[in-house]
């Protein structure tokens, strides 16, 4: 399934996805930025030919934006329209708090879909800790309680993928409800395979040099280590510039693609000779 979508995985990733689907449990994926955590959800959605519902978390995200909200404008309009009609308050109340006036947000939408969707809760560590508790009922019982309506049970259980960059520690309650997967920076062979799969027109020597170079850069103490997505951006850029091997000039002029911090760029520029020496030695060893 993953191979068909050109996603280079390993047994750990494949087993976790398989078990997540089998046991209908959310998969919590942690790892450095840019190693392909979000991509897994997209790949599963494509492979299963189903929809991807994404909830991007951020500080201050609340239940109204994640689960459901009442359509206040429509409710007001209804009240205005029925002002002169002979309808009791109780009736009006039950009307305006009906499903017709309910706005579905990603979490509710995912459980009300007729067929299982892929639910991506991205960067959950950015949301407030209190917000995690909203997920608990959904992730264990696959239901959402709405005070005015009651409990809405899932019509189909979504394939839930939760990603985190470990900006803060997630609660144990959330972890217990999920399967866990840690994705680290890939090994040389795996990263090379990823480059060749994603950038098919690349020169093999260049791909090897890029992989070795990236491996060495990740050994440095940088503010932000480049991930696989940066490797792919770089490889795509160099391939489209018809470059067939790395040179100091090429690296210096394109360093901004892989490094996003001025101090990291400066430190790397100062260590370029050393890095190239490493690339040369490791190339010879292969």
């Amino acid at each position, binding site marked *: 399934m993953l191979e068909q979508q050109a996603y280079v995985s390993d047994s750990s990733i494949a087993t976790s996805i398989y078990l997540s689907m*089998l046991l209908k449990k959310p998969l919590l994926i*942690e790892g450095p930025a840019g190693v392909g955590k979000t991509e897994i959800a997209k790949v599963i959605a494509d492979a299963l030919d189903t929809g991807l519902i994404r909830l991007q978390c951020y500080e201050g995200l609340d239940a109204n934006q994640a689960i459901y909200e009442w359509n206040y404008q429509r409710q007001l309009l209804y009240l205005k329209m029925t002002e002169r009609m002979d309808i009791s308050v109780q009736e009006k109340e039950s009307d305006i708090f009906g499903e017709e006036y309910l706005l579905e947000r990603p979490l509710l939408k995912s459980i009300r879909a007729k067929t299982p969707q892929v639910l991506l809760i991205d960067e959950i560590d950015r949301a407030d800790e209190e917000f995690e508790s909203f997920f608990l009922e959904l992730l264990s019982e696959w239901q959402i309680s709405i005070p005015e309506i009651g409990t809405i049970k899932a019509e189909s259980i979504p394939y839930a993928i939760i990603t985190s960059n*470990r*900006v803060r*520690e997630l609660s144990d309650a959330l972890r217990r409800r999920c*399967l*866990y997967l840690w994705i680290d920076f890939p090994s040389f062979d795996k990263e090379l395979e990823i480059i060749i799969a994603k950038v098919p027109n690349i020169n093999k020597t260049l791909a090897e040099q890029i992989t070795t170079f990236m491996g060495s850069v990740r050994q440095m*103490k940088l503010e932000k280590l480049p991930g696989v997505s940066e490797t792919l951006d770089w490889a795509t850029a160099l391939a489209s510039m018809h470059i067939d091997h790395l040179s100091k000039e090429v690296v210096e002029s394109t360093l901004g693609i892989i490094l996003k911090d001025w101090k990291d760029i400066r430190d790397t520029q100062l260590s370029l000779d050393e890095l190239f020496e490493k690339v040369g030695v490791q190339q010879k060893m292969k």
Partner: protein
Amino acid sequence: MMAGTYRRQTDMPSHVVQFTQYLRSQDFDISLREEFDYLKAFSKKIPTSYEEQEALCKALFVKNRKEFLRFDELYTTYWNRLALAEDSKIKEDKKPHKNRYENPAVSLKALKKWLHGGRMEETEEIASYSVFESLMQKEFSLFAEQDHKDLRAVIRVLALRLANKDKRRFISSKKRHNIDLKNTIRESLKSGGEIKTFKYHRRKKKKLNLFLICDVSKSMELYSKFFIEFMYNFQHIDHNLKTFVFSTQLVHISRLLHEGDFDAVLENLSEAVPQWSSGTCIGKSLSQFITDYSRQLNKGSTVLILSDGWDSDDLDILDESMAYIQRKCLKTIWLNPLAGNPEYLPVTKGMQTCFPYIDVFMPLYNLESLKKLTQHL
């Protein structure tokens, strides 16, 4: 778990139970639900290779990065030991095995003795009109058992003060203290400008993004119990606080501090921190902190290091680690219990290496100095 205490089982459920028991003994948090999940998964797809079986267990029993990185080694160790173990049907050897709780670290014993009054005879009686007044000035190393109740109360107040600082921003509130004029007027628009209900707000609480790293090496032995007490109380008030101890290596203790009362916590710490009161490797420990937790550091983080700065480690690593922490965080505060002495000079190599990267350097040897710390957070 020793090799003789577990056996080769003949059915899958027993195997799973035994393996999860082994993982639990290695501090893995595994519940019955995971065991059921394993059996359910196993019934659907029987692993055909050692690697597949390992991947299956790993996906189900691991809950965080630390466990993820340790799992492979533990899995190999378990099965290697099992290969040498006896079958479960052989009668159990009744020879009593040594209880691993029998010999906790000697230094911690001393620590507990102190906690339970072992140092009482050494303490001086200080006549004072106010208990708290005298406590505030009293050096931590001179605290007696009878002072601990008051000490905890004061620490709790200070920790509460730290954890409940207000931000400039407001959020809506149900308590009818402060009227939120902006939202009241906005709400009144629904009824044509007529104010029918009032909205209220309060100041948002400041979330302290604090990392407390405490040195528990031999040279800090006199102070470490107090610091643990401070961390314990603070951790119970502010759940976001991340607490660590180190001597030759770093141990994350936030979760341990939540388990039971203070005595139980000390008991648990003696197991979790085997290097208590040993040598000091500040650089190596901080480097470990960066490797494991740098993702959680940001420009709102404050790193508090409680140490006397005696380091037997490579100073280059210390220099590199301190520089990194200073770059990533809002503030690096170094609390040194020895700095309470007026003649103290930070002349140790470790302290000199760290000094350029410290934003606030202050003594922490009594409650008065702890009170002063609140101004910097």
